[in-house]
């Protein structure tokens, strides 16, 4: 291996090194100061995030099994930003008594899932892709059961591992059909050998169903709400933002590069699933009282909107998907950040508990409002731009009906986002959540989210950079 090889695999190697360093730190760290492992890990990861943005050569390794391009790098960098935010948001929670023994595990496991996602995104071969997806999923199941003395948390872990095992099985079954009909698992070769035979289409459908589990697209979404509710809030936000984002990234790459021949097939598939995902996600979100479940269903419907960017198979579509996921990271982490802060301080997670929040905690309420408006796509925050570009991408290919259904769905989503806003600003409450002051890490993370929500939209340069790196079918 030459030094150039190392540079190409920079993201993965650095993350593995960081994971090992955290492990070593756990062994040699002074047992009385275990809390500072958080700080150490965050600084370490912050440095990695910054290094990720340095210019890097693109190329492929291991005979084309591993591919690194500008597009894939920006995807990894976006995930890094998201993970960094999740890390900073978890500090307060990790300081709690019951978690003090397992701080390093938290970072270790999250870092290894991130390595898995990076390999998945950089895959040029279905095996690497599969290894990446498993590495990204299994540690997460352990983390979902992090509060292992809580029944719900343990249940969430089991549910996640079982459903992802099932989805992996479905995915592998589809891959086996693809292998059987094309004789290869390299992306580039599958693309050239792929035809339109029924078995190949079936293989594709199984592959898509497997991915739909990971992204929680309706009708493969049933695990989502329970897992999100049972897991600790930080893991929930990680699942809903980072895992989902990574799976969408690789899905769009595979659809555009491996399956361009059957574009008509996957356009139909996406058309139906996206309508189902948006609508069902929204209708269920209306009924939720627990904010974690609420955000779970809202994130299902968000996945439905993102599918609009995939459907056209155009360059604008890929750009809008990557851009929207960046926006979505900031918005959803902003919302989850507020939920985390309140859950840490008071243990309350229901919408009713937020009644009258504005009068006691105005800043948190404003951040929550901003984040929810961004999720709903209200200007001038970034979510508006993200949604606009997604819809433009679909309209460019003539899917006006789908766009109309999607915008009508945003109205439904606005209804339930406004219910939370109403609780905070309008509803009266005899015993509102008392005023509390969050610690530095929470405020810092929320501040970053707010900056992200506001700036990502207006600064057109971000979208233009992403667009220049994107490609169409």
């Amino acid at each position: 291996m030459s030094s150039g090889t190392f540079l190409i695999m920079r993201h993965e190697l650095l993350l593995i090194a960081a994971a090992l360093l955290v492990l070593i730190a756990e062994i040699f760290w002074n047992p009385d100061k275990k809390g500072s492992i958080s700080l150490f890990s965050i600084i370490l990861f912050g440095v990695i995030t910054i290094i990720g943005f340095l210019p890097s050569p693109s190329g492929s390794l291991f005979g084309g099994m591993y591919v690194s391009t500008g597009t894939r790098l920006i995807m990894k960098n976006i995930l890094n930003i998201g993970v960094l935010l999740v890390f900073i948001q978890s500090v307060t929670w990790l300081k709690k008594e019951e978690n003090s023994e397992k701080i390093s595990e938290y970072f270790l496991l999250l870092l290894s899932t991130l390595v898995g996602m990076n390999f998945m995104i950089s895959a040029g071969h279905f095996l690497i892709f599969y290894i990446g997806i498993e590495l990204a999923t299994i540690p997460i199941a352990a983390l979902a059961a992090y509060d292992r003395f809580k029944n719900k948390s343990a249940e969430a872990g089991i549910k996640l591992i079982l459903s992802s095992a099932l989805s992996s099985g479905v995915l592998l079954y589809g891959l086996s059909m693809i292998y059987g009909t094309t004789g290869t698992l390299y992306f580039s070769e599958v693309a050239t050998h792929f035809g339109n035979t029924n078995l190949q289409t079936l293989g594709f459908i199984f592959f898509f169903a497997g991915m739909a589990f990971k992204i929680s697209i309706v009708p493969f979404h049933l695990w989502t709400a329970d897992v999100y509710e049972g897991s600790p809030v930080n893991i929930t936000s990680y699942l809903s933002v980072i895992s989902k984002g990574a799976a969408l990234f690789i899905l769009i790459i595979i659809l555009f590069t491996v399956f361009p021949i059957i574009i008509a097939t996957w356009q139909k598939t996406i058309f139906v699933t996206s309508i189902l995902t948006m609508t069902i996600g929204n209708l269920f979100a209306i009924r939720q009282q627990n904010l974690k479940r609420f955000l779970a269903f809202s994130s299902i419907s968000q996945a439905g909107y993102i599918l609009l960017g995939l459907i056209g198979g155009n360059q604008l579509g890929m750009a809008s998907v990557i851009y929207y996921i960046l926006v979505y990271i900031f918005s959803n982490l902003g919302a989850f950040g507020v939920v985390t802060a309140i859950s840490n301080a008071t243990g309350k997670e229901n919408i009713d508990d937020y009644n009258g929040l504005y009068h006691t905690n105005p800043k948190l309420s404003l951040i929550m409002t901003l984040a929810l408006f961004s999720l709903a796509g209200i200007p001038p925050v970034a979510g508006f731009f993200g949604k606009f570009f997604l819809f433009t991408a679909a309209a460019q290919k003539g899917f006006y009906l789908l766009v109309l259904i999607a915008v009508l769905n945003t109205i439904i989503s606005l209804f339930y986002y406004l219910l939370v806003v109403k609780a905070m600003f309008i509803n009266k409450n005899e015993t509102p959540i008392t005023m509390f002051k969050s610690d530095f890490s929470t405020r810092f993370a929320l501040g970053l989210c707010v900056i992200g929500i506001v700036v990502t939209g207006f600064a057109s340069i971000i979208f233009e950079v992403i667009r220049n790196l994107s490609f169409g079918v």
Partner: protein
Amino acid sequence: MDILSLFVVIPVLTITAILLLKDTQQVRLISAFGMGLQLLMAISLVILYLTARHAGNNDEMLFVKDYLWFKSLNIHYTVGADGISVAMITLTSLVVFAGIFASWEVEFLRKEFFVSLILLATGVFGFFISIDLFTMFLFYELAVIPMYLLIGIWGTGPKEYSAMKLTLMLMGGSALLLVGLLGIYFNSSPDGSRLTFNILEISKVVIPLPAQRIFFPLTFVGFGVLGALFPFHTWSPDGHASAPTAVSMLHAGVLMKLGGYGAFRVAIFLMPQAAHELSWIFIILTSISVIYGAFGAIAQKDLKYINAYSSVSHCGLVLFAVLMMNQTAMNGAIIQMISHGLMTALFFALIGMLYGRTHTRMINEMGGLMKIIPFLSVCYVIAGLASLGLPGLSGFVAEMTIFVGAFQHPDLFYRIVTVLAVSSIVITAVYILRVIAILLLGPTTNEHFEHLPDAKWFEKISAVTLIGSVAAIGLAPFWLSAMIGTSLHPIIEKILSLNPF
């Protein structure tokens, strides 16, 4: 910094200043100062505009500034103004200025109230200066969303229901609008050159007719929801009745005008052929708005509901007139927007002031107020007379022009609907005069009312500003209609070149 962008920058600066203030007493002073500055700017804009036109500048839009924003999609931040937008900007600054003084005594969460109010105004100003469809849409949505908090927090009655209904219906309208705008964008260069959101550039091409047939109704209804187009007007009575005074003023006075303005500037101007083909459907709907709104007002007992239904009727007349698609009627439509904006803002301000004193808005619970609070009562009479179209006040000029223009159509269908719409004047007279008779004249029914104080200084500022403008338009309408008329020429020409009647 160009003069038009200042109309967005000043409100934003005002909001920032308010947010930084610790003392809530100064909030309203800062707001009044900011919006006063805005009013002065609007007046100087009118002067600058007239001098430029006088000097022979015949561009379609003046003060055009263009900044590239999203390069790959060719989205620009482009501002520009013609006589119509200048008139609308002036209207907006008048109403906002009056609105600040009408809400002088808001106590609850004062800072947040003024911030939301000015944010709403920012959206409206931004909408009127934009000539890029993307920024126009952005500002349009920005204007709608603060309404939810304004009605939900500071409103009265079933405020949560009304706020939600209003927000969702208006956002539903903007959902249709978004699809319409995307349709326009992707058909903006049939010859395959660069797609654009710029209204002026799109107006130079002809959007293919099949596309027009799909996207004209979407765009028109999208804007029509905000312009209280029947059957999408139901947010208006509830919303206006529950909203606090200044919000009703701004909403009926200005925000509903975004609907009318957008309907002709975007829907009709860019897709005139489909507009001509489909206009009969919408003319029927708007005629229903006009007449149904007026009858609705007769049936109501709550002052705000009366005025809300009357707004449905008057705004229906705006859409009715733009659909006639000739110079006179469109001219009337724009004067009607301005006249109704001022008049209805005056009405809502006065209703707010009355309610602040009597704590009721039911007309049958009040009576004989003329003797007790003469200043407010006289103002109310003036507003009423303007509303029923008395010569010398703005309403007469507007409605007269509209009906003359509408009757110019030789076609029997147009003449019949015009005759029907004209009947609304009579119905308007019924409800206005009935309210005045019960409310202001006659014996004082409630002894608690006998010691009510008359208008305070800030209320007088609010009322006099608006009455002055209503009278000015009524007495000297030619300046306004000349300013609008020259700007309407290119629009009418485009319509006529594609639709030989």
